[in-house]
Structure formats: C-alpha cells, structure tokens
C-alpha cells in the first residue's frame, strides 16, 4: 500500500462499488489516460468520486458479500451443533451454542412481554450475525485488502457493519417488523389512535402528538443503525491510523485497541439485540 498517508486512509475507507455510470461520463484510468463512455455501462468504480457519480443504482459488493458469508457461517455452524447435539457430555461446539441460545432466551424472557414465537429466533439471529460481522474487525487492516488488490479489485472493505448501508439495512428490517406487529396487535385504527392521542388525549392536540410520535418512531431504526455504524467506523479509522505508524510503535497501540474491541464488538451486538426486543415488546403492548 504505497502512496502518501492521505491516499492510504481514503483507500481503506472506500467500499467496492458496482454500479452504472451514465453515458458520456469521462473516466480516469489508472495510467492517467481518460476514456469517455459512449453508453451507460455497469462496472466497478475505480475511485470514490466514480462511486458517488453512480447515483442510486450502485451496490457495495464487498459489504453484501461479507454479510452473506457471515450469515451462512452462522446458519451452518448452529445447524451443525443442533444436528450433532447429544444429551450426554456435550462437545465444545455444543457448549458454546447452548450457552449463547440460553443467554438470548433469558434476555428475551426478561424483556419481551408479548406472545410471539418469532422474537427469540430473531434476537438470536441479530446477536450472532452482528457479532460475526463486527468481529471481522479483528483481522488486521492490510491482510484481506492486500489479497484482493493482488486479484485486481481496487477497493475492499471487509466489515459490513462499518458501512452505513449495512446497518441501515438491518435496522430497516427491524423497523418493518415493528410496524407490522404494531398493526397486527393493535389494528390499523388502534395504531393510528395511539400515534395521534399520546401524550395529550385531546383531539386538538393531534398534529402535535403525531409529530412527536412519528419522530420517536423514526428515530428508533435510525439510532439503531447509526450507533452500530459509528462504533464500527470509528474503530476501523483508528486501526487504519495505527497502521500508518512506524512498525515498532504499532504493537504498543494496536494491542490495547484490539483488547478494547473485545468489549465493544459483543456489546454493540448485544445492544442491537436488546433494543430490537424492547421495540418489539413496545409494539406488542395493547391495553
């Protein structure tokens, strides 16, 4: 990773974007020449600017790929543990999986006050999936992007939750579930009544109530997403900055920061899970 430090940092903070560049767009190639596209083409972005110019129809291939890989890993691992489960002396994998499931089960029992068989598996999925995606941060910064660079890919960011699109995708799913269960348990009329008549139970206060309640409803997924993104992105930036220091200083700083992340990574996954359960519990309340 040559070049000056500014380039190094921006390079490591850019996602691999696959999208459509409009017709007539002038691209700058790596060797300095420019090519003008005669028609709209689907291609990998060669720079951050190109990624922005692609507009809405652009996919962060690296985030999508790694989140899918972590999801498949989670499903395969837990299925393997479930299939080889014995009631005798358990093996190590079964022990780990059982303790995680028990932990999530206890948390759901304490926090969720409705009746819904979907919530506990959802909580387990969110916890383990977010934990696995976050734990990709422990892989040293240059290892996987170095391999990808040798394979010809211009950028490669491996932590899907350090991508705001990743975390917003997760929280959007949770938001849709909140709305779905609110309407299912309270009915459309009940839900609308709750939105418009709290905290002031008077018809004249309806616009004010609606404003407050809709704002509160919208901050739920937004804060979920941005909390996870902020934690992961800031951690990633500090890892990249430490990688720029001379090699004899790197151990001194990297070790404490990585150890601090042993706290942060599970904690953020846990908080995402607990808040999801709390919001779903609120959506199931009917008096």
């Amino acid at each position, binding site marked *: 990773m040559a070049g000056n430090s500014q380039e190094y940092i921006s390079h490591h903070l850019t996602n691999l974007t696959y999208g459509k560049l409009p017709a007539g767009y002038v691209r700058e190639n790596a060797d300095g020449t420019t090519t003008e596209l005669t028609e709209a083409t689907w291609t990998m972005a060669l720079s951050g600017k190109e990624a922005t110019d692609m507009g809405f129809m652009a996919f962060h291939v690296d985030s999508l790929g790694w989140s899918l890989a972590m999801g498949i890993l989670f499903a395969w691992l837990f299925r393997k543990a479930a299939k080889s489960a014995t009631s005798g002396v358990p093996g190590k994998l079964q022990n780990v999986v059982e303790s995680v499931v028990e932990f999530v089960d206890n948390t759901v029992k304490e926090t969720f006050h409705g009746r819904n068989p979907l919530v506990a598996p959802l909580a387990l999925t969110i916890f383990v999936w977010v934990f696995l995606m976050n734990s990709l941060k422990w892989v040293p910064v240059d290892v996987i992007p170095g391999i990808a660079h040798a394979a010809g890919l211009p950028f490669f960011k491996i932590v899907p939750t350090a991508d705001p699109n990743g975390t917003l995708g997760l929280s959007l799913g949770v938001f849709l579930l909140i709305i779905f269960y609110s309407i299912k348990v309270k009915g459309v009329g009940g839900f609308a009544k709750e939105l418009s008549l709290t905290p002031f139970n008077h018809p004249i206060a309806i616009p004010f109530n609606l404003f407050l309640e809709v704002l509160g409803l919208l901050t739920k997924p937004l804060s979920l997403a941005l*909390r996870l993104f902020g934690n992961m992105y*800031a951690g990633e*930036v500090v890892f990249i900055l430490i990688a720029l220091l001379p090699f004899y200083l790197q151990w001194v700083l990297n070790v404490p920061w990585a150890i601090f992340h042993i706290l942060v990574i599970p904690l953020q996954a846990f908080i995402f899970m607990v808040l999801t359960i709390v919001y779903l519990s609120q959506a199931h309340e009917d008096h």
Partner: protein
Amino acid sequence: MELVYIAAAIMIGLGALGTGIGFALLGGKLLEGTARQPELGPQLQTKTFLMAGLLDAVPMIGVGIAMYLIFVVAPAAA
C-alpha cells in the same frame, strides 16, 4: 477549509464531555448499589453495560461523522 477540522474537533470534544460525565454517574451508582447489595452485583453490572452502550450512542455517532469529515470531506475539499 480549516473550519471542517474545527467542526470535527467540537463534535468529538463535546461528545467526549457528555460521555465522561454520563459514565462517571453510571459507574458511581453501580459501585453504590453493589456496596449496598453485593448479591445483585452481576445483574447490576449487566444493566450498567447496557446503559453504557446506550449512552455511548450519540457521541459515537458524532465521532463517526467527525472521522468522516476529517478523512473524506476535508481532503476532497482541499
């Protein structure tokens, strides 16, 4: 474009102030509570970490945006 750096500094600084005071209060209450009822120690600790994560949220969002400003917006505008 030095204003971008000052903006980032204000964001991180004030966020750190809020987090510091918040965690201090939280930690103090945890110590008091554990001293009064040691058997509730682990339970209180779990809840403290939960509250710590929630408390961290808005300052972390601020830090994330500030990092983005320093490393992506400032070089692009310079």
